[in-house]
C-alpha cells in the first residue's frame, strides 16, 4: 500500500508501533505511518473527530465512546483490536533488599497507604529472608492520566480483593504516595528516592536497572515480570464476541508461570468509512502488526506476543476491514 496515515493514542504501545512502522515502511516504500503518543483518551477522541485513521488505546471503547466511534465509521463500526501485551513491573529502591516478593493484597495495602513501613509484618511474612528496614514506604504512582495506571489498578482491584477499595481507571485515586509524570518520571523518582516503590512498563525498570518485585499469581507462585509470563497471564482473559475484541481480564484462574500484572493495548480502527487508500493502508499495516513476525519482533522491547487464541481472532477481524 502507498500513502500516509496517522494514528495517535497510547504511549504504552509507542515503542512497539515505532518498531512496526520501521519494519513496515522498509517493506512497503511509499507508505508512511505517523503515530503520536498523545494518551489513549486523546487518541480515541481524535479518532472520533476524524483527525486520525486509527487510535492506540490502553483500554477498550466504553459504551458512549463506542457509539460515537461507530458514527465516525460511516457505514461500518469501530473495533477494538488487542495488539500488544506488556508486563507492568513493580520497581523498588530499598537498599539491602533483593528479590522482594509481594502478593496482590500486600501491594494493594501498600499503594492504598494501609501499609506504611517496609518492615510491616505483612511484607515480612512474604519475605522471611530479607532484612527489611524500619523505613516509611514511599509509593510512587503516575501523576498524569495513564493506561498503565488503568491496567495496574484493574489488577489491584481484581486480585487484591477487599484490600483495594478504589475504582480502577486511568487517574490514580488512592490517597497518599507521590505522583510523577510519565513512566519515565515514575522510574526516575523511584531511582532517586530511598525506600520507594512504583510501577511502570517492564522496559523502563530494566533500562533503569531497578529491582522488580516478584508478584504472587493465582497459582500461588511469586513470578518475576517477563514478557512470557505476561502472555501466560493474559491467556485466561475472555475475548468478547463479534468483531469488537474487547478483553476482560481474569486474575483468579491459576495458570502456572503466569505474571499477573500486565497491560493490553488495542488499536481502534473502522471496519468501513475511511477513504479507500487510507482504509487499504490501515488494513495493510494492521495485517502486518497482527502477524507472528511482528508480534515476535517486539519481545525485547518489553512486549509479550498476543496469546495465539487472541491473535487469531485479531487477524480475522483485520481481514474484514475495508
Amino acid at each position: 500500500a502507498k500513502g500516509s496515515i496517522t494514528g495517535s493514542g497510547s504511549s504504552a504501545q509507542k515503542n512497539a508501533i515505532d518498531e512496526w512502522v520501521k519494519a513496515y515502511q522498509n517493506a512497503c516504500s511509499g507508505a508512511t505511518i505517523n503515530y503520536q503518543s498523545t494518551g489513549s483518551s486523546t487518541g480515541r477522541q481524535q479518532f472520533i473527530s476524524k483527525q486520525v485513521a486509527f487510535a492506540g488505546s490502553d483500554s477498550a471503547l466504553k459504551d458512549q465512546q463506542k457509539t460515537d466511534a461507530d458514527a465516525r465509521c460511516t457505514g461500518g463500526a469501530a473495533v477494538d483490536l488487542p495488539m500488544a501485551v506488556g508486563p507492568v513491573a513493580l520497581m523498588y529502591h530499598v537498599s539491602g533488599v533483593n528479590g522482594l516478593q509481594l502478593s496482590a493484597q500486600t501491594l494493594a495495602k501498600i499503594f492504598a497507604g494501609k501499609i506504611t513501613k517496609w518492615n510491616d509484618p505483612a511484607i515480612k511474612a512474604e519475605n522471611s529472608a530479607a532484612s527489611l528496614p524500619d523505613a516509611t514506604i514511599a509509593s510512587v504512582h503516575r501523576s498524569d492520566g495513564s493506561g498503565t495506571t488503568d491496567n495496574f489498578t484493574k489488577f489491584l482491584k481484581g486480585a487484591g480483593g477487599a484490600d483495594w477499595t478504589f475504582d480502577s481507571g486511568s487517574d490514580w485515586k488512592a490517597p497518599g504516595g507521590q505522583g510523577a509524570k510519565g513512566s519515565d518520571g515514575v522510574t526516575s523518582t523511584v531511582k532517586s528516592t530511598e525506600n520507594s516503590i512504583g510501577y511502570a512498563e517492564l522496559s523502563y525498570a530494566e533500562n533503569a536497572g531497578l529491582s522488580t518485585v516478584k508478584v504472587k499469581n493465582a497459582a500461588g507462585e511469586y513470578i518475576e515480570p517477563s514478557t512470557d509470563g505476561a502472555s501466560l497471564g493474559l491467556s485466561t482473559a475472555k475475548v468478547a464476541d463479534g468483531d469488537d475484541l474487547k478483553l476482560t481480564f481474569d486474575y483468579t484462574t491459576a495458570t502456572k508461570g503466569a505474571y499477573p500484572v500486565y497491560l493490553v493495548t488495542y488499536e481502534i480502527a473502522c471496519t468501513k468509512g475511511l477513504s479507500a487508500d487510507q482504509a487499504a493502508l490501515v488494513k495493510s499495516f494492521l495485517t502486518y502488526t497482527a502477524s507472528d513476525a511482528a508480534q515476535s519482533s517486539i519481545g525485547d522491547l518489553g512486549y509479550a506476543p498476543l496469546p495465539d487464541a487472541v491473535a487469531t481472532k485479531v487477524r480475522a477481524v483485520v481481514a474484514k476491514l475495508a
Partner: protein
Amino acid sequence: MSGPAVDGGADHLGLRGQILPRWVPLAVAAGAVVVSLLIYLLTPVDSEIQIVLMSALFFVIAMTAVSTAVEGGRRARDRFATTLVYGAFLLAVIPLVAVLASVISKGAGRLDGAFFTHSMNGIGARDVGGGIYHAIIGTVEQVLLASVLAVPFGLLVAIYLVEYGRGRVSRVISFFVDVLTGLPSIIAGLFILAFWVLALDQGFSGFAGALALAVLMIPTVVRSAEEMLKLVPNELREAGYALGVPQWRTILRVVVPTALPGIVTGVMLAVARVAGETAPVLLTVFGTNLINSNPFSGEQSSLPLYIYSQAGQPQQFAVDRAWAAALVLIIIIMVLNLIARLFAGRNRLR
C-alpha cells in the same frame, strides 16, 4: 594621583571618610568561607550548597558589621546593597551554569553531523541513530511564523496604548494584555485546536502551532514594547511633530527606533518562551518523524515536542537524543538572540 599632600593632616572638611582598604572584603570573604567549612566539617550539615549559602550569609553579616563600625551607616548600607546586587547576579548564574552544564554533559555526546541532517523516519525503538532535522525545521518555521503574526500585531497594540490610547478602551486593553500573560500555554493550544483545527477544519499543521504560539507571544510583546515606548521622552515626539512630521511617521521613525533595543529584548524573551513550548504544539501540530517543510499543510515536528517524546522513552539513547535536542534548541535561541541584539545594538547610538 598619589601622595596626598595634606598640610598638618587635618581633614576638617571630612572629605577623607574612613574607607576600608581593598583587602578587607577579600579577607572577610575568606574568613566566611573558612568558618562555614569548619561548621561543615564539625557539625552534621546536609548539603554542599549550604556551605555556599552560609559563607554568603557570614560574609554579608561580617562585612556589614565591619563597615558600620569603620565607615559608618551610610557606607555600610551601600556595601550591603553592593553585596546583595553582586550576590543576585551570582545567584542567577548558578542555575544557569547548572542547567547548561547538565544539558551539555548529557547532550553533547549525540551532537554529530548525522543528528542534524536526519529525521526520525525509520528509526525504531531499538535504533540508536536518528536526528532532529525535521524538528529543527518545524521549530524554526513555527517560531518565525508566530513572530511574524505576533510581533507586528503586538507592536501595533503597544503603539496604540502608548501613543493614542487615552480613554477607557486603552485601559481595558492594557489590562487584558496582562491577564493574557497568565493564560496557561496548554489552554492556548486547546483554543487553537478547537477553533482552527476542529471548528474551521484546517487540520494539524505548523501554522496551527504558530497560531497558538502567537497567542502566547502577544502579551509579552505588547507589555515589553509598551514599557519601552513609554520611556521615550516626549521631547523627541515634539521634535518630530515640530518638523512637520506626521504623528505616524514620528512614531515609526523616531519613537520606535529609540525604544528598539528594549523592544527587541522583549521580543526575544517572547521568542525564547514559545520556542520552548511543548503542550500547545503537541495539540496543534501533532508531531511526526518525517521531514515536512511546509508549515501550512500536514503534521510537523518541533524541538520541544521531540525532547518531550524522546525523554519519555525507556531507552537511554532516546533520552540522550532528548538532551542533545535540548542543547540544540538552546543554541538556536541563543543565536537568534545574539543576532537580534546585534541588529538592535546598531540602533543604539549613545
